[in-house]
């Protein structure tokens, strides 16, 4: 499957665009929840403190002279101070701010809008919340304060906070999961389309299945299908044209060539008077053979082009079978040229066009036979080369021990109609161009090197590695 990691991904984009704001929103939610829970909580605790003031005030005795006296019994004080978590303090000051009863030095809340008023302060090295009630008496304002350490408040605020955070985080995770699942499910038709395209062979010109395609991308697949249809039609037209051209070219060539062949053997048999005439017919015959060869090569080159090769031609085949046939087919030529043509074939399976590879091999062997002097060796090989730890590539090569190709010519020999200078050979310079075109059609690479003995030429075609 093609890697979706390249470029940007709609799925990642959607996930990012949805989750980042969602996370922010939920963080804000935690803060709002916290403050909206903590302040009523604090008010409730203040209420309890305030109600203690009532208890203290109820036991104050204010004399006619304005003297204030606390009549709280020890038991009442014990009840007042009874608390499992916090220390409770109280303080009563008379109108002249003199100590009447309670815990001396307990801070007093400054006068505020409400009565009692509250303040957060520090007493006996601990934070306290103090409520002060200003009671108006005939002799002036008596201050009644009750203070409480803040253990309970802090504890419950902490509990509240962890509860809020836990529930909000759970909510956030739940939402993100839903977003993730939603995006995944929502994008499924798009991913299915992606896979459908990724699985296709580069030569497959069949229309894409549009049934699972969402309407947003349907124009895209419709455009692709129109393009596929156009390209397929063009390929078919070229295929037909080449088949007709081949027929119309080869038939008269075959006739002319065979007639000249017969004419030259007739002249020989009947001992034609003029040897110059025989010579001319022989030249005509050679020229006609070259013309036929070039016509074949041009047709092969045209048919090797990708546009003339629909996927239908490709199938699984073994290079060894192909190499054996190729060598057997060229055995007569090798025999006539006194060249030892051989093969070293190991089974190597590739997906390829049978006839194109035969054409490729025929050109490699043709070239090797043409450029190797009598007494030389030409060997066709195929097999598997290890291309790394997991991939194994099939290869097909032809090696000769002829004069070889100079280093500086090695790139140029693949150009169409290029011929090595100084050669007396009648090649048309199309052989290696055909080899290259066919290799390209198969996604294969060509390596042109010196033969294994340090002499001659080795042309190796390496097919793309298949998965391990």
């Amino acid at each position, binding site marked *: 499957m093609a890697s979706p990691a390249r470029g940007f991904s709609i799925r990642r984009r959607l996930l990012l665009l949805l989750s980042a704001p969602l996370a922010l929103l939920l963080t804000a939610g935690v803060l709002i929840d916290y403050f909206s829970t903590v302040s009523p909580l604090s008010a409730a605790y203040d209420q309890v403190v305030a109600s203690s003031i009532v208890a203290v005030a109820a036991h104050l005795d204010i004399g006619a002279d304005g003297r204030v006296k606390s009549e709280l019994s020890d038991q009442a004080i014990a009840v007042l101070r009874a608390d499992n978590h916090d220390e409770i303090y109280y303080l009563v000051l008379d109108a002249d701010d003199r100590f009447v009863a309670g815990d001396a030095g307990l801070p007093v809340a400054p006068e505020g809008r409400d009565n009692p008023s509250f303040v957060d302060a520090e007493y006996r090295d601990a934070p306290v919340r103090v409520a002060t009630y200003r009671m108006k008496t005939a002799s002036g304002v008596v201050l009644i304060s009750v203070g409480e350490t803040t253990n309970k408040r802090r504890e419950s605020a902490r509990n509240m906070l962890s509860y809020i955070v836990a529930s909000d985080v759970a909510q956030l995770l739940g939402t993100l999961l839903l977003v993730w699942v939603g995006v995944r499910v929502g994008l499924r038709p798009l991913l299915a389309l992606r896979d459908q395209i990724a699985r296709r062979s580069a030569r497959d010109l069949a229309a894409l299945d549009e049934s699972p395609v969402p309407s947003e991308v349907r124009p895209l697949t419709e455009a692709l299908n129109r393009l596929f249809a156009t390209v397929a039609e063009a390929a078919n037209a070229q295929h037909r044209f080449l088949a007709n051209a081949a027929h119309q070219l080869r*038939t008269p060539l075959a*006739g002319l060539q*065979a*007639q000249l062949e017969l004419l030259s053997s007739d002249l020989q048999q009947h001992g034609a008077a003029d040897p110059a005439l025989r010579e001319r017919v022989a030249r005509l015959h050679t020229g006609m053979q070259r013309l036929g060869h070039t016509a074949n090569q041009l047709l092969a080159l045209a048919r090797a082009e990708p546009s003339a090769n629909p996927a239908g*031609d490709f199938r699984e085949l073994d290079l060894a079978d192909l190499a054996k046939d190729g060598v*057997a087919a060229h055995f007569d030529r090798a025999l006539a040229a006194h060249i*030892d043509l*051989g093969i070293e074939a190991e089974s190597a399976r590739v997906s390829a066009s049978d006839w194109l590879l035969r054409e490729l091999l025929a050109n490699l062997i043709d070239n090797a036979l043409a450029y190797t002097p009598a007494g030389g060796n030409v060997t066709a090989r195929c097999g598997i080369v290890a291309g790394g730890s997991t991939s194994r590539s099939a290869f097909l090569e032809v090696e000769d021990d002829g004069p070889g190709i100079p280093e500086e010519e090695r790139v140029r020999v693949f150009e169409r109609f290029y011929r090595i200078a100084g050669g007396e050979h009648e090649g048309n310079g199309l052989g290696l161009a055909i080899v290259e075109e066919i290799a390209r059609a198969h996604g294969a690479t060509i390596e042109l090197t010196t033969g294994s003995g340090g002499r001659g030429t080795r042309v190796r075609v390496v097919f793309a590695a298949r998965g391990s």
Partner: protein
Amino acid sequence: MRILVIEDDALVADAMVRGLTQSGFAVDRVSSAEMAEAAMQRETFDLLLVDLGLPGMDGFEFVRRVRRAGSGLPVLIVTARDGLADRVNALDIGGDDYLVKPFAVPELAARCRALIRRSKAAGNPQVVVGHLHLDLPRREARVGGEPLELTPREWAVLECLALHAGQVVHKERLQQAVSSWTDDITANAVEVYVSRLRGKLGEAVSIRTVRGLGYRLDES
């Protein structure tokens, strides 16, 4: 040996007729499949030489009809088309061999000879390659009338090569042909039998080595 050439192009047909006649065949030529069917009702032939691109009924259809009629006549298909599809089709519909235009006249004659020899061998247990004569049921080989002394394994190798004279026979195939006689025969052993055969056959025929692939028996 009589050949029917079915080819519409006059230039090609004329060359075929001349070339095959020179090679010692009796040749008749027609220019369409319909005419070929008529000719086949009147006469008997040993081989059909069929061009695929005929006007009217094309070569494919013609060969298919010949085969459907139950004829085992050898058919050599000649065509100007290339490509695997045509090749596979030509052999699938019942063609015995396939030659692409343009062709060399000697090759055409050689292919015709090989096909006729093969079809004769099917009915007639005598195989003749040049001066070599094989009597298959008797397992007797003669060169120019003189009987050859052959071991059963040498005979098996020679029989296999002679039945496919002019074609490269893979080593593996010879190995199999010999192995049916005993347990296991290595490729090296096949080499030994071939070299002994060469010694016994002398100049009568030649067994050529295709390095790494196999051997081919040819008339000398």
